[in-house]
């Protein structure tokens, strides 16, 4: 019962035969174009079950309207269907683009360092139950080259781990962290999450391969003033960055009992003047430590919005 575009114009009464022909052509062209668009939209939306049914509904509505009201109405219906379909198409394309990084990651394999992208992705989703991390200053990090990011590391806060997850999500690159144990249980899990041994040669290898590496300072206390200071930075690992010509970035982490956490990355620490011996790494380590301290001062204390904020203790690495 579908009216064909070629048959309908001859039934339209008109004083001017030429106008009828031109309208006929116009309608044919529009109808064909609309049909193409609807076909494309239908194909694209068919891949997404929920929006697929919506696209089919819109298309059938357009077709039904065409049946009832002739070609003009039909073309308007198709155009509406096409517009709605295009909007759906744009939406699905956006969703696809947003998930592209996740879906493009290889499955059933590890990267050169033994990091498992699938496990990292799932752990990051799981970690969001504990931390809702806001990352700032990630634009200062290099897009392709390696970098060593040094974060303050209060005891039990797992700062290098959650910082590596947060930075990885912000810069859309794998980020590794220093400090995995070398045992078959936790060490293996940490390795699959991107952990590196706390060894200067191991870190130097990763930096030479243009990887982003997060390392923590020495752990500080859990409560009170000790939680507010920044521990010493391992100068041998800093030496690895110097040896590979990699920039070192200070970063302040802040987390509390609530989920809200923050990672603020500062600009690259300026290198001290050239030294012939290992003094350069000691000076750079001190400088990084001071800059992390400054970043923490700028960050301020984290507020949970709960009576916990009134307590004098600063728990789990909060500042």
């Amino acid at each position, binding site marked *: 019962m579908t009216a064909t575009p070629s048959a309908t114009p001859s039934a339209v009464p008109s004083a001017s035969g030429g106008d009828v022909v031109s309208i006929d052509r116009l309608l044919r062209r529009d109808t064909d174009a609309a049909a193409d668009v609807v076909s494309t939209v239908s194909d694209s939306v068919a891949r997404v079950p929920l929006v697929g049914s919506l696209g089919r509904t819109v298309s059938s509505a357009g077709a039904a309207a065409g049946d009832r009201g002739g070609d003009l109405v039909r073309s308007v219906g198709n155009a509406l269907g096409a517009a709605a379909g295009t909007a759906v198409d744009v939406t699905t394309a956006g969703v696809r683009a947003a998930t592209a990084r996740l879906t493009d990651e*290889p499955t*059933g*394999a*590890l*990267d*050169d*360092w*033994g990091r498992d992208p699938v496990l990292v992705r799932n752990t990051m989703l799981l970690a969001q139950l504990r931390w809702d991390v806001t990352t700032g200053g990630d634009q200062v990090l290099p897009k392709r080259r390696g970098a060593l990011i040094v974060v303050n590391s209060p005891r039990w806060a797992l700062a290098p781990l959650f910082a590596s997850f947060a930075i990885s999500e912000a810069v859309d690159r794998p980020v590794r962290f220093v400090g995995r144990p*070398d045992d*078959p*249980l936790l*060490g*293996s899990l940490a*390795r699959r999450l991107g952990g*590196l*041994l706390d*060894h200067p*040669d*191991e870190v130097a*290898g*990763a930096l*030479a*391969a243009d990887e982003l590496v997060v390392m923590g300072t020495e752990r500080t206390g859990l409560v009170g003033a000790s939680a507010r200071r920044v521990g010493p930075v391992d100068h041998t690992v800093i030496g690895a960055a110097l040896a590979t010509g990699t920039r070192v970035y200070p970063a302040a982490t802040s987390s509390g009992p609530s989920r809200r956490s923050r990672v603020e990355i500062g600009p690259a620490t300026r290198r001290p003047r050239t030294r012939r011996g290992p003094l350069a790494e000691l000076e750079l380590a001190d400088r990084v430590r001071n800059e992390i301290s400054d970043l923490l001062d700028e960050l301020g204390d984290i507020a949970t919005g709960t009576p916990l904020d009134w307590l004098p203790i600063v728990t789990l690495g909060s500042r």
Partner: protein
Amino acid sequence: MAGKRVFVSGVGGELGSTVAALLEDEPWVGTIAGIDANPPRRRLARTTYHRIHPDEHDRIVSTVIDFAPHVLVHIGVWEPHSRANPADAAMLTDRATTSILGAAAECSSLENVIVRSGTEVYGRARGALSRPSETAPLRPTSQYGRTLVALERTAADVGARVGVTVGVVRVASVIGPHVPSPLGRVLRLPAVPFAFPADPPLSVVHQSDAASAFVAAASVGLSEPVNVVASEAITASQAARRGRRIPIPVAGPGWAVTRALTHLVGAPIPDHVSEAFTRGRLADNGRMRELLGITPQRTTPEVIDDLHSWPSIVRQPARKQVA
């Protein structure tokens, strides 16, 4: 530069014959000769093959000296449980290395020595680097690793004594069609053991990539070690799942039972393979491009996929039934 004489030891094996075949196409290579206990696995157009057992010391020496090579590519290394049991493999490797490198040292024409080694030389002791580069200390923790370190030392001594450059190609486990790899055999079993809960990552290299690395090393006159490893890594359980095998978790003393069982079914697990399963084995291949000008064509998962896609037994019916 053209017209160099290249001598390939271990030319009968899959890797050695592939290297010889590639060398035949190199414009700088003049004549090629090679020795092995077994004939080459493929047709070689202009390589002179000498069938000599590693025990035949005098014949090896006279053959090498008569050929007077400019470049020696020493691939004659026996991996434990590839074609010989671990004790024989170590002995054969040692004898072949001493005879061939010793003979080459007597040749005044010798300019460059390329030797095959492996990433087993770094060892996997507790605290060892996850992905050692060429500068990492050599602390082997397996018999094969110790054999390879001894080989490298012999080559370095010979090089220092006669004043020629020595390049060391440290290959990961070589896997490819017809390569007698103990790791490959285990991964092709219907049920593949993996270390529980560690299941550490390991990397391998395809036979064609390894062969290309040896040819490139000879071509550029490599004078230092280089790791030749495919990109990415895989765990034993992942390899099993990719090949639709059954992954079997094994822990602690279970490995002794597993080794005995796999030995019974024709896939013995030498200690360096066992170590790769329990501690993992990766190596930094970052200097391959810099030193050799090549990069591996296949990633580790691709090599493993290839491993699983090879037909087990190709049955060719007789064209004419006579019995």
